[in-house]
């Protein structure tokens, strides 16, 4: 799991560098500047693009949602009221903080256990697989902002 965060970031960087310009989210020149800056600061491309204000996180999530067929969920709505607070027992605080994930809903019956997991990126397959292993649930990821997850963790854990 140590490697999965780095892998997730590399996959995301590659996808962004290949898709943002063709999708006309940023220009090829902006991408070049961002890539150079990311390298100089040793930061992921996503974070660099956000710092340079070349993209907004909401715009990035919308692009991911469209491309990867995922839902965006504003888990911070109504002061995190939609989040099932009892689910903090499922995943340790350290895991949620490190991987920026938060369990939101769980439904279970005799046939299956379904867990809805808030994530910040679609490139979290390994982490989702680990959550499935840890919880014994089938996991459905939903996209949300980093701030929403961090705020949720601070509020609920």
């Amino acid at each position, binding site marked *: 799991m140590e490697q999965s965060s780095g892998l997730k970031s590399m996959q995301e960087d590659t996808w962004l560098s290949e898709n943002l310009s063709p999708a006309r989210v940023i220009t090829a020149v902006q991408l070049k500047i961002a890539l150079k800056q990311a390298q100089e600061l040793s930061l992921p491309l996503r974070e660099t693009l956000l710092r340079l204000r070349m993209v907004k996180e909401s715009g990035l999530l919308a692009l991911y949602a469209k491309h990867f067929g995922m*839902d965006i*969920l504003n888990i911070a*709505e*109504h002061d995190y*009221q*939609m*989040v*099932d607070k009892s689910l903090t027992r499922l995943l340790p605080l350290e895991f949620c903080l490190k991987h920026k994930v938060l369990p*939101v*809903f*769980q*439904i279970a*019956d005799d046939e299956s256990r*379904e867990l*809805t997991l808030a994530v910040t990126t679609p490139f979290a397959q390994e982490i989702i697989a680990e959550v499935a292993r840890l919880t014994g649930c*089938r996991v*459905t990821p*939903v996209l949300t902002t980093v701030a929403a997850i961090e705020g949720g963790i601070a509020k609920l854990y």
Partner: protein
Amino acid sequence: MEINIGMEGDVVVVDLTGDFVASAVEQFTTQLAKLMEKNFLFVVLNLDKVNFMDSSGLGACMAAHKAFQGKKGALICAKPSEAVAKIFRVTRADQKLKVSPTRPEAVKALQEIAAGPSS
């Protein structure tokens, strides 16, 4: 949350208005238990005017669905608002609950179920 209960033939229609959250669950559960006691076992849950649903509201819907099924009845969620439909989708509740796009379709489906298989 406001709960209004009406009849359409043999089918009970429960109209919910407002936020379906933890504080509304007891009232909802009590009302549905009363229906069950009186042997009203075919229920449309109209979610058209529910703007927000939290995990407690979702859990209450799932529990009600299961309870009516257990009594050989049925509960159909009708016309969920966009917000509720999203919650049903991301939780995969829409694969466990019966969900109908309109209230009349839900009523018709339940009337058919209540009438039993045609000979």
